[in-house]
């Protein structure tokens, strides 16, 4: 099953998003938080993200959600730290953190492959709040 990593500047945002995703997946999907710096300050940490990716992977790939600016940079650095095989099956979702990760979790729980889970996540950009 595809795994999911939540990268946020805030550990609480990452933990809370994971909590929400887990409600949707009934424990079937690994959703791992990677929020805050190594001393749990506001920020992101490549090593923390790398560890979360390794933990989320079960051989079918990992979709990573990021919040703002440098979360993306830290995630790119984390990708460089991964071994070659795992590096090939990790992608960043170009999607909103909460909406994207929730729908991706549901899609992953149905056993879909990484590309399908990513496409569902990115489809969530079209979700309107006011309709």
């Amino acid at each position, binding site marked *: 099953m595809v795994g999911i990593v939540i990268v946020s500047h805030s550990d609480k945002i990452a933990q809370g998003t994971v909590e929400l995703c887990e*409600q*949707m*997946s009934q424990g079937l999907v690994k959703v791992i938080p990677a929020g805050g710096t190594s001393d749990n300050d506001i920020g992101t940490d490549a090593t923390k993200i790398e560890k979360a990716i390794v933990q989320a992977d079960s051989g079918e790939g990992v979709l990573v959600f990021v919040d703002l600016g440098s979360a993306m940079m830290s995630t790119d650095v984390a990708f460089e730290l991964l071994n070659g095989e795992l590096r090939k099956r990790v992608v960043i979702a170009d999607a909103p953190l909460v909406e994207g990760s*929730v*729908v991706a979790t*549901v*899609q992953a*729980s*149905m056993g879909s492959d990484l590309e399908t889970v990513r496409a*569902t996540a990115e*489809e*969530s950009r*079209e*979700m*309107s709040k006011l*309709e």
Partner: protein
Amino acid sequence: MVSEQVRIINPTGLHARPASVFVKAANGFRSDVAVISGDKRINAKSIVKVMSTALKQGTDIVIEASGEDETEAVRALVDLVKGGFGEV
């Protein structure tokens, strides 16, 4: 093609966890499955479509399926909605 009308009775409506349960069940069938509410027609197998439509408690919907297992699909999904997703 088989279709049946059912009322959403659970407090959350067809959203959040119930939406996820519903879409997963729909994906268990080979038939094309749609949820129809008024002039809206959405793919019951798409979590994004079902969640963004956010059908509320008290809404009457029609579940429509076409394909080899259409009868089973409609029956299973209608039963899920009638059962209130464990919320009632």
